[in-house]
């Protein structure tokens, strides 16, 4: 069973071994509104925790998506180019952004688990 962790900026990372699947939470997509464009990094790019990983554009505005942990991009979700609305419809599933090879598992400790994140959202 893969574990999902969350950042305070509403990115999630679903951890399977040393690879994490990164996307934005259901709360984040609802705040953004209709997603019309996603700019993804190239495979092989090195991301650092808290640095820009992708850009998500709604009708109204562009938002940066930050890397929840450091690592190398090993795959991106090419489906989002033709169907960016998938981010709204299925953020935790088909609406993922990228997969990252986790450089330092200790960085995951600073992220919230599901219950902590749900409580965090309630305070916003």
């Amino acid at each position, binding site marked *: 069973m893969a574990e999902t962790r969350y950042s305070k*900026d509403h990115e999630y990372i679903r951890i399977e071994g040393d690879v994490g699947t990164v996307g*934005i939470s259901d709360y984040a997509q609802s705040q953004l509104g209709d997603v*019309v464009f996603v700019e993804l990094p190239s495979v092989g790019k090195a991301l650092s925790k808290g640095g820009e990983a992708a*850009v998500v554009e*709604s009708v*109204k505005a562009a938002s*940066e998506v*930050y890397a929840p942990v450091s690592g190398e991009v090993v795959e991106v979700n090419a489906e989002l*180019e033709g169907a*960016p609305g998938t981010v709204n419809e299925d953020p935790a599933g088909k609406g993922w952004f990228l997969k990252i090879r986790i450089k330092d598992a200790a960085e995951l400790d600073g992220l919230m688990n599901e219950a902590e994140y749900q409580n965090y959202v309630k305070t916003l």
Partner: protein
Amino acid sequence: MAAEATIDTAGAPAPLKTPLHARHVALGARMVPFAGYDMPVQYPAGILTEHNWTREKAGLFDVSHMGQAFLVGPDHETTAKALEALIPADIVNLAPGKQRYSQLLNEEGGILDDLMVTRSADPDEDGALYLVVNAACKDADYVHIEARLPSNVKLIRAEHRGLIALQGPGAEAALAAIAPEAAEMGFMTSRTMKVAGIKANVSRSGYTGEDGYEISAAASKIGEIWDTLLLDARVKPIGLGARDSLRLEAGLCLYGHDIDTTTSPIEAALNWSIQKRRREEGGFPGAARIQRELAEGVSRIRVGLLPEGRAPAREGTEIATPEGEVIGTVTSGGFGPTLNGPCAMGYVAKAHSAPGTRLDLIVRGKPLPAVVAPMPFVPNGYKR
């Protein structure tokens, strides 16, 4: 994840509410501060759905935050001449029941605001002109106008009125069901009529590129008209988010973004709104500059831009030639839902303004190819 722009409302006065505010909240709208008002940016359906509904059926917008006022003088000619001293449109020859789009100009020919001017169809109201100005500018506009009126013409602020817009191909049928006269109206005309039994001023115009109406009635009654229209299955409430994407696709200027005090109506490609008599005679603020620009051309002009890829280019994006020379700035841009792609408008050096000119938009540091395109981006549905 972080939004590029956040609205800092710390220390701002409590936002004003339109007469329909409680209805927006009850409909589940996401409310945001806009021009000092708490306004619905979207309803639960979301901007894309709301935008598409307006293009296909009929969208209902609360625009009560906009400034409604009357200029009242002894006769039409006196009132029209008083207004013509401030704007470049021909108002003296505006027929009863007709409406015109114009701009309030400063002495340099820069745009203080854009506005709609309507001459009442009712002979009893001859000498009255009805104005609709932008919410964010209305207080300054009124001060500016009042300071420049002759003693026999008065500005009356109609703050007791609400204003709603019904826009889209289904607007005629939906409004005619509760105000049959609406079906007989032509584009840019205005009439007083009963709407759902309530006295209202109705004009056949709007700011979405679609056929439609703007309905002005007493603030205490506008809610009844709103509620009655929403009973029609063709009509859904639409927020300011879709209003913005609709007007962008229609190639219409947003004050404070596409036009402001630094732009003239000629630079903004609004020549069509200055009638021949006024071009020749002048007699409005900044006339010398505007007549010179009409005769000699402008050094920069507002154009439409179509990015070739999927990434939107937003306000503030630099526009460059393919060789990398920066020649302008995007003033409005985003994703066009009907276009199903990005579109933008901005000012470029005249030499690069011809439709078909290939340019680059510098988005997040990267040049993205785009082409100068005629506006509107989506054909309009006005009922001529």
